């Protein structure tokens, strides 16, 4: 059965990922919901058969209940079998309200969606250590897909834009919007070098920073180094940052499942640890059993020769 799919994301990349996901579940037609941004509605036409666009002076800045009310109105018009939402903080809060209003199934933190007599979504569970397959038993079913879960679809043509009029209540007031200063975020780095308990002093992180720089990436730490020793504000792993770089290098990282949960999607995993029984070797493509204080300087020297 061809599905009628409604997608919602506030940005181009997110929208194109949702288009790929919609195709994955056999979308017969794809509609996009765009709120408060006319330029983006025009952009969305290139990917969707139809764009439902709502605008008013009350929709200029993101407000959860108001945006959800608009989406609810659009759902009524589009009558989709599936609603795919970018799993950003804004997307999830809007999807949650929508789900409560429609009494619909809603899966967040999803990385995959497929159609099999209804929708089935794969999401992380138990803090990210496990993955769960969840069947959505309502139509529409709502799935919030984590950014980066699907490739960005190419332009597909020229859909039409339908304007939607929605009366929204006053609700919360947006006092101010402050953009966040984000440098190279660990979750966006192509190479991630992670320091574990085997690293003895905070100063020794500079050695790993140099390695990361030569490899073109960034340095993170494991939970104990962040939560207990305060060497860094956040850690790589469960309830911290999840990364999926092309190359992950764990230095003195033992490889507890809670850490592995946050690095599992890395393309290639390299581990350096003096303990041959460290669990990380089971999760590694390449490992070196040895003292990181002799291995890392040598590694740095060799990698530089290739650059």
């Amino acid at each position, binding site marked *: 059965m061809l599905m009628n799919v409604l997608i919602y994301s506030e940005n181009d990349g997110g929208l194109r990922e949702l288009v790929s996901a919609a195709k994955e579940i056999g979308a017969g037609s794809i509609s996009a919901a765009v709120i408060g941004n006319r330029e983006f509605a025009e952009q969305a036409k290139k990917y969707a058969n139809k764009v439902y666009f709502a605008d008013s002076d009350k929709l200029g800045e993101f407000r959860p209940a108001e945006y959800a009310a608009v989406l609810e109105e659009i759902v009524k018009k589009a009558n989709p079998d599936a609603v795919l939402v970018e799993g950003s903080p804004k997307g999830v809060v809007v999807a949650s309200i929508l789900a409560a209003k429609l009494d619909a199934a809603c899966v967040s933190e999803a990385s995959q969606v497929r159609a099999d007599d209804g929708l089935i979504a794969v999401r992380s569970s138990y803090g990210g250590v496990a993955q769960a397959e969840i069947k959505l*038993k309502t139509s529409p079913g709502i799935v919030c897909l984590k950014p980066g879960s699907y490739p960005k679809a190419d332009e597909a043509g020229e859909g039409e834009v339908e304007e939607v009029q929605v009366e929204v209540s006053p609700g919360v007031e947006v006092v101010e919007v402050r953009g966040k200063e984000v440098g190279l975020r660990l979750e966006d780095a192509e190479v991630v070098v992670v320091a574990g308990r085997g690293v003895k002093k905070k100063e020794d992180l500079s050695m790993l920073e140099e390695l990361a720089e030569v490899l073109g990436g960034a340095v993170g730490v494991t939970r104990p180094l962040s939560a207990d020793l305060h060497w860094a504000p956040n850690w790589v792993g469960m309830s911290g940052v999840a990364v999926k770089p092309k190359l992950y290098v764990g230095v003195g990282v033992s490889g507890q499942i809670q850490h592995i949960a946050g690095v599992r999607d890395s393309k290639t995993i390299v581990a350096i640890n003096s303990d041959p029984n460290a669990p990380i070797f089971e999760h590694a493509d390449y490992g070196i059993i040895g*003292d990181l204080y002799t291995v890392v300087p040598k590694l740095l020297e060799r990698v530089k020769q290739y650059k």
Partner: protein
Amino acid sequence: MDIVVCVKQSYDVQQLKFDPATGEPMLAGAPKKMSDMDKRALEEALKIKETAGGKVVAVTAGGGEVKEVVKEIYAMGADEVYAVMDDALKDADTTAIAKVLAAAIQKVGNYDLVLCGAASTDGYSWQVPAKIAANLGIPILPNAVSLKVEDGKVITESDLGDAVYVYSSDLPAVVSVMLEINEPRIPKLSAILKASRKPFNQLSLSDLGVDVDAKMEVLSARMPKVARKNVVFDASDAAKVDEAVSKLVEELHKENLI
């Protein structure tokens, strides 16, 4: 200022074990604790009460034993606890739990503010607070990293990923809080001892008249296995470091990683 705080008793995922053969979580007897962000919500409520007065009431809902979490809630300083205990909640999804909590909040009666952790330690759906707000028909101010109440309004700095939104809303409203909002107090031993003797209000699903039909079904939950090459070079002897590192770098070069 009367505040209701929603608290979940979560699996302590830092300690959760998985069956090595099946990859499934070993839930029987697994340790549980108050969800991390909910603890911040309770702390925030207690701080507001310290300056504005009023009452802090906690509500919790679940399928299993809640005594431990109730004790922890009282030890931190909550005035009352309402616990919805029903086996039917064991497999309840977020939509159902939000309905139950919203109904329990209405049962509590007067409230100016509802505080929740933005996501739970084990479930991490980020959905329940907004669903509670939708069920109560009041605004949600999500993902607060700071919160203040002044002149009958609640004002949050809400971290929504790409930007921080400063929201202001009339009361009552639901605010969900992030880990960064505060450092929760550690209860004194005397408070812990007293807490175990305090009674709590038990509610059943029939008291609340809520339908908890699941809209979702968990087909499987397990630790995924990712196939890895598991090539290990031995450099435990200092003399072998050069060779081991050279081999590693060669492999990484072949894979276009350096």
